[in-house]
């Protein structure tokens, strides 16, 4: 049977694995955003931290992904469940784009606007939430987009350590020497990534146009 028939015949499994994949990438990106965006804001406030924080995130990204999975395996609690491990590793990989884009986005806000805001008596918090973050939001969402797409891609490797997801189809298909199974994993994974890129790209453009309204 051709590839589409194969997908239909195994649609339950395709759905299961796709859901697993979205969970891995989604939770990881969410975690990374919850840590990375505040960190990015922090280093705009405390410039001395910017070098170590950005440097640290950079180093993590440089570690080959499979090696990072391997490092985390012996860790207590984390290494016991492949799902946890994969989510942690994926979240670590997603940190750099989020921290860096938050930082760059806020730094890139027109300093005259920020100063005007401060001169009018906005508190630091009001400045952050009403001026800096909205104006930086386009760049920040670009960071989210990159982080999401990277996570979806890396999550395929997570299957190698038993975390499931669409990568499992790929690895199983390789062991079976069965192209249809491989594609049943590869194609949905690629489509997921493209879809996320598209949706977040649209959001990014809408938010980015706010900047140019000056």
């Amino acid at each position, binding site marked *: 049977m051709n590839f589409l028939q194969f997908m239909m015949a195994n649609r339950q499994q395709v759905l299961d694995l796709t859901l697993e994949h979205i*969970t891995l990438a989604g939770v990881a990106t969410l975690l990374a955003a919850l840590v990375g965006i505040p960190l990015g804001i922090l280093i705009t406030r405390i410039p001395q931290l910017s070098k170590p924080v950005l440097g640290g995130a950079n180093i993590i990204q440089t570690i080959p992904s499979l090696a990072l999975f391997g490092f985390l395996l012996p860790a207590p609690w984390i290494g016991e*469940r492949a799902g946890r491990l994969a989510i942690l590793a994926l979240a670590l990989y997603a940190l750099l784009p989020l921290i860096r884009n938050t930082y760059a986005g806020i730094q890139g806000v027109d300093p005259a606007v920020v100063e005007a805001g401060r001169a009018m008596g906005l508190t630091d918090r009001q400045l952050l939430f009403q001026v800096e973050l909205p104006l930086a939001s386009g760049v920040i969402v670009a960071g989210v987009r990159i982080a999401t797409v990277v996570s979806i891609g890396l999550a395929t490797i997570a*299957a190698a350590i038993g975390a499931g997801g669409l990568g499992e189809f790929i690895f*199983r298909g390789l*062991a079976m020497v069965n192209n249809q199974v491989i594609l049943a994993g590869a194609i949905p994974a690629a489509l997921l990534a493209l879809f996320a890129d598209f949706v977040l790209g649209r959001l990014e453009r809408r938010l980015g146009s706010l900047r140019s309204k000056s």
Partner: protein
Amino acid sequence: MTIHSIRARRKQIISKLLLLFLVLLFLFPVVGCQRHADRIVVGSKNFTEQLILGELFAQVIEARTHLSVERRFYLAGTFICQQAILAGRIDIYPEYTGTALTAVLKQQPGGDKQEVYRRVKQGYEETFGFRVGPPLGFDDTFAMVIRGDDARRLHLQTLSQAAQFTPQWRAGFGYEFMERPDGYKGLVASYGLRFAEPPRIMDLGLLTRALKERQVDIIAGNNTDGLIPALDFFVLEDDHRYFPPYEAVAVMRGEMLKNHPEVQAALDTLAGAISDEDMRRLNYAVDGEHRDPTAVVKKFLEQRRVIN
């Protein structure tokens, strides 16, 4: 309200909705884990024997219960299978008692078959809440294999007997066998083996051919390897009981059994149903004769009246 504040309000609402949508998109998978209503997922590792056993479990459950079974075979190894069953992504998979004891429960090997089985059953119950089914009847342990004509000519049955002749033989082993603590080193120590020259190390797949073509005289293979009967090889008995037992059992998730106790009853019918010979023949049917595992298993079950 003036027109401009209405418009501004509307923009706020739209951006809040968008935010909500994105949050939901991320949360949805976490919440949407309510699968596996009336479905049992059977997993297996990625070699022939495992595929056959997985298919065996699947067909028995399908025949004897009203449940539908999904197959998730070719998982890349013990660790992957263990993670998958822990996370509930699969409900059942075939495991070997020896592997379960050392690789999963991380205990020291030792004890006879019954002892190992007991330790595994208890360990899995207490640590993971998994139920271990009764042994299927065969032992896929390491086998020291020689050519049939050598065995007959020299009247060899056991490894101890063969030990007298090994100084004249060349041995061939796989990488893993050389590295494992319960592999080459321990074997040589246990039987006091010596060989004509250091063993040749090669891929598992090439060992069989090397033995056949008389490039080596003794290899370490698997006890249930399909090619053993086909190529007229002989398995020397491990009379020192050096190799740990690797009895095949079904590992089942306790959660799943709570919801579907009939699965346990179905798989228990396989207790002791497959001998070493049976497994070798099944393996050969797939590896040697290149028949479809599904058909091979179906035929077997029909013949044994396990299913009609």
